[in-house]
């Protein structure tokens, strides 16, 4: 490992350094705004350093990490999302008298874990990244430790994520036993011809289980609604976007090529997972009356849509997934951002009643939430529409008609519950029954406005983003 290699790791080092620095400063001088500022500066510096690192790519740093344009793209996405989430956290925590500052350390550590994940090229770094991410998330989910819901969410997440990590590890061990390599790039070639061996099949099954859990796809989705509901709203946004997005980026990078070349049989279980996620996610969302749970089931369905593009394969599909993830990040951070802004010191604003008549009290906030929901539903002018269009296009180019039809049917089912939330916001309620004294959070509002602008920009004029994706994507 020489200096150039070390320099290529700059974004990761900056985040790690910021985490340590924030910790040290808190030890001496505990100020909420200061922690936030340092976090934001660290995130922005890491984001800026991507342009410094870009000329060096692709750069293999030890066998563990690969920093290519693909990794940098997703690292950028993760950093941008964390930046927005950190600001949302500030407004959220201001209302709590509990210890606030440590949340940013955890957030930075989780970010570091997901960055390692998207840059990993080895079983070891894959697993390390995942664990750094998960351990930070256990603590983040249970951060508001005086409430019962977050604690429950944290413990649930700890147990289920722990067991899924065990599955993943066991799967890796089995595959290593058969192939003798832990390098992900060699996975595809070394598995060629031996995918029928029982060790490999069992290993792949266990790995898919572990990854499926992280993505929260059916049938590994059971934790999603509970954790989404229990965790503090900005943390939920982080779990929904950064944690899932990073896992999907990794899955796409290695399984996509491997599957296309040597592992066609793996497509079948993924297709089943996709169908089950789309249908079950959307159908169960219909039964919910809690906004966070609705968004949780909707995110299960969205992972299903992403898997449709994954099934399609080819360069169009990986572009579609990249675009979809960008749109999904913006939308989900925006949606949970609205929940965050409306939450008060006692509880998160997660029941439908909290949103009744919101448009007539807070028109801008309600319009933003409406746009986010429309983006999830895939209605034009929003980035979500183009994302869905992209996925359907990828599917159509690969002629996987059954999956596309199910996507269409399930997204219509999805419309039902999105519209229900929208109708609730536009319903007229009498002044007395309306929840009053809703807090205003200035920083959060700026984030929401910025996200909305991005949502509309990518929805109406996506050409610049598409150019970036085109440049980045040949893996």
């Amino acid at each position: 490992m020489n200096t150039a290699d070390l320099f290529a790791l700059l974004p990761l080092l900056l985040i790690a350094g910021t985490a340590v620095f924030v910790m040290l400063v808190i030890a001496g001088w505990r100020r909420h705004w200061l922690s936030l500022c340092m976090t934001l500066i660290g995130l922005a510096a890491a984001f800026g350093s991507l342009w410094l690192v870009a000329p060096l790519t692709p750069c293999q740093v030890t066998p563990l990490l690969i920093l290519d344009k693909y990794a940098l793209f997703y690292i950028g996405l993760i950093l941008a999302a964390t930046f927005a989430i950190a600001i949302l956290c500030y407004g959220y925590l201001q209302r709590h008298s509990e210890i606030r500052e440590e949340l940013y350390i955890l957030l930075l550590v989780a970010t570091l874990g997901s960055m390692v994940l998207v840059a990993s090229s080895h079983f070891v770094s894959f697993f390390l990244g995942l664990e750094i991410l998960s351990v930070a998330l256990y603590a983040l989910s249970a951060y508001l430790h005086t409430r019962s819901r977050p604690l429950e969410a944290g413990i649930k997440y700890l147990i289920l994520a722990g067991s899924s990590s065990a599955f993943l590890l066991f799967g890796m061990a089995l595959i290593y036993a058969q192939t003798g390599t832990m390098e992900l790039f060699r996975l595809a070639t070394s598995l060629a011809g031996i995918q029928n061996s029982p060790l490999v099949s069992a290993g792949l099954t266990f790995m898919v289980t572990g990854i499926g859990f992280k993505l929260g796809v059916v049938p590994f989705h059971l934790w999603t609604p509970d954790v989404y509901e229990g965790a503090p709203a900005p943390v939920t946004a982080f779990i929904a976007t950064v944690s899932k997005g990073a896992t999907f980026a990794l899955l796409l990078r290695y399984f996509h090529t491997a599957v296309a070349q040597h592992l066609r049989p793996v497509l079948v279980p993924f297709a089943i997972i996709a169908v089950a996620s789309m249908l079950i996610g959307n159908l169960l969302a219909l039964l919910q009356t809690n906004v966070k749970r609705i968004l949780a089931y909707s995110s299960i369905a969205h992972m299903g849509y992403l898997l449709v593009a994954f099934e399609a394969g080819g360069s169009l599909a990986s572009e579609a997934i990249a675009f979809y993830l960008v749109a999904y990040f913006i939308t989900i951070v925006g949606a949970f951002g609205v929940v965050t802004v409306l939450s008060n010191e006692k509880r998160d604003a997660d029941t439908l009643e909290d949103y009744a008549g919101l448009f007539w009290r807070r028109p801008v906030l309600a319009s933003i939430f409406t746009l986010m929901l429309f983006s999830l539903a895939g209605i034009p002018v929003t980035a979500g529409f183009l994302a869905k269009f992209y996925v359907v296009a990828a599917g159509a180019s690969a002629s996987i008609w059954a999956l596309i039809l199910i996507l269409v049917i399930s997204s219509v089912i999805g419309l039902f519950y999105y519209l229900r939330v929208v109708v609730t916001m536009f319903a007229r309620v009498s002044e007395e029954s309306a929840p009053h004294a809703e807090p205003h959070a200035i920083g959060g509002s700026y984030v929401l406005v910025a996200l909305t602008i991005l949502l509309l920009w990518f929805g109406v004029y996506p050409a610049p983003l598409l150019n970036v994706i085109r440049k980045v994507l040949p893996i």
Partner: protein
Amino acid sequence: MILLWLIVILLLGGLLAWAAGRWSRSASRWISLIALSIDFAIGLAIWTSSAGRVDLLRQQDWLRELDWNWIPTFGIHFHLALDGLSLPLLMLTFLLGIMSVLASWTEIHEAVGFFHLNLLWVLAGIAGVFLAVDLFLFYFAWELMLVPMYFLIAIWGHERRVYAATKFFLFTQVSGLLMLIAILVLYFAHHAATGIFTFEYADLLGTPLSSHAALWIMLGFFVAFAVKLPMFPLHTWLPDAHTEAPTAGSVVLAGILLKTGAYGMLRFVVPLFPAAARNFAPVAMVLAVIGILYGTILAFAQTDLKRLVAYTSVSHLGFVLLGIFAWNKLALQGVLVTMICHGVSTGGLFILVGSLQERIHTREIARMSGLWQTVPRLGGTGLFLALASMGLPGLGDFVGEFMILLGVYQKSRILTTLAAVGILASTFYALKFVQYVFHGPNNHHWKLPDLGLREAIIFTPLIVILLWLGLYPQLVFDTFNPAMETLQQHAGQTMNAMRR
């Protein structure tokens, strides 16, 4: 460029009206009125300036055009174009837009600014549908016009508004997604045949397709348009949506939104897939005739005045569908006239029902009667519009439906006979409308204000247009003929390309 302005004026006008609504209700009404009038004037200017160039038009397809690169990675263009088919429909859109603003002048009291934002944006979406000649842009506008319409019904509608709005949204969304798949399949088929990725209408014409594929792709388009039209048995959203919507919403729905379905059939279904459409024509025509008779019978059976008018739309649009799939000159000319006249007469009827409801707060036919005594001018207007709707000779609807029947006669005598029975049967609902509402004794002792100045301003142009199209429809034909010939030519060319 002027085409973009048509849309932008509406979008900006909507935003302005919303912003102005915070301070003054009438300000947002006036802003909407002005925005729509500007658009109407622009449309009129284009029409008069191109009227003299009818012969020149035979060489070029579009009267006005705007073509920008939009999403180059997919070959998507921001391509708007205007021809003799879209121009009359666009004029209808702006005209009925003005009428809906006027009609909701006293009806809408809550959130006036936001109401006008939605009204103008739904009109902007519809204008986009009529102007788009890039299939992606078309789909974009197609989906876009749903959202404001949904809000119009869900926020300002009547008793069961949420149910009706959701039903409307889901029906159109399902069918829209089927169309999206069809568009994408066509896009990839075109790429497979030529190596070019394009959503351009003109390029996609004549894409060689196997007859099997063409049928399925055509069905994707057809279902989307048939839901909007609405064709029996996909019409069930219509009575609910029309009845629950506020007056302006009903006018826009019946007057213009339904025409986007017919427009799609004319512009896309037949020219893109002529052979498939020809094979499918018998099915479509039979369903159209069922729709005509079914709509008429159900209209007669309604007790809710607005529902009655809503079902007449099913019947009238049945004629339009019948004419489109007959696909000859007479029938197509009839289709355009019917589309315009149905928009005007049904739009007028909905405004009339709306002003009655504003006065007596009910739509139940049983609770009306004898209204002629107290509101004679309104009664006279109602009689006129009802007669127009049932197809009285001398009024526009008659011309359109008669020409469609003439055209269809060349294809099928049985269907023509049955459709003609539909015209006859429409007398029942028209007379029921007039008799039960206006005639008879004034049992409820209604004492109501008669037609005011604002309402007179609404109804007079509508009546004049119906008379004009009934007596001298030539001007519309002159505008439409070149466009129609182009469409027929496209259909023919595509046929040839497929034979080769």
